[in-house]
């Protein structure tokens, strides 16, 4: 297994782990962090392909992905904190207002 395959496989496994964490864990902030893990896995694959193609466009795209991820976290965490303040818990089982 050469380096490129190893790293893309690692990126795929990180994505799968993040997805599993999103499905399995109950704490909303931990779910947010698992989403960040998914994004990191995908970015690793992107960097591997950028380095193979020696393309500047892909590196610019990686940089823009970082910036967009930062902006997304800046909005998601305050929303989660407001929700937690409203429901007095971060447990996912309590957010059932839209159920039924």
């Amino acid at each position, binding site marked *: 297994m*050469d*380096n*490129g*395959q190893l*790293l893309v*496989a*690692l990126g*795929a*496994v*990180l994505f*799968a*782990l*993040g997805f*599993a*964490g999103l*499905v*399995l*864990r*109950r*704490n909303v*902030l*931990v779910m947010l*962090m698992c989403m*960040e*893990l998914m994004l*990191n896995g995908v970015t*690793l694959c992107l*960097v*591997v392909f*950028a*380095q*193979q193609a*020696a393309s*500047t*466009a892909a*590196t*610019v795209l*990686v*940089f823009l992905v*970082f*910036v*967009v*991820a*930062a*902006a*997304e976290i*800046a*909005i998601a*965490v*305050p*929303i*989660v*904190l*407001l929700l937690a*303040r409203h429901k007095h*818990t*971060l*447990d*996912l*089982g309590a957010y059932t207002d839209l159920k039924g």
Partner: protein
Amino acid sequence: MIGQALLWFFAAGALAGGVAMLVLRHPMHVALSLIGTMLSLAGIYAALGVHVVAVFQVLIYVGAVMVFMVYAIMLLDVRDTSFTSRYSGLLIPGVAGLALFIGALVYVLRREGPVGDIAPGATAFRVERFSVDFLHEYWLHFELTSVLLLAAVVAAIAILKAKRRGDG
């Protein structure tokens, strides 16, 4: 040879951090393992020769995103129920699904043939080339991203104001 060993070391670190995120109980420990994963990924990027991306990973992800997450986790109450019961109801099907998912991904990867090799640290990517290409060809994307960031700042302030109004 040292570059190859470093690559394996950082890959193992990233994997360990990812698995630890699923298993650990306290959100602060999960955040610490995510920081470990991100730093290992930065090490992988540096070992591949794109130290520009590695520096941005540390600066933006670890230095801003994770600092924000740790700040939010610091304000949590330790008696929250989600600390004792970690997993949602779908634990067994979830783990089975994870195994299937990883198996499917690795199978597709094997079938697609070799991705192509990269020697660690073969081509060093310079900051100057990156920034010149960025601002000559992709300056529109740069400006659109700054508009996106401005929208994020306005949205954060709006959330803050909504919270104040809600508290009365």
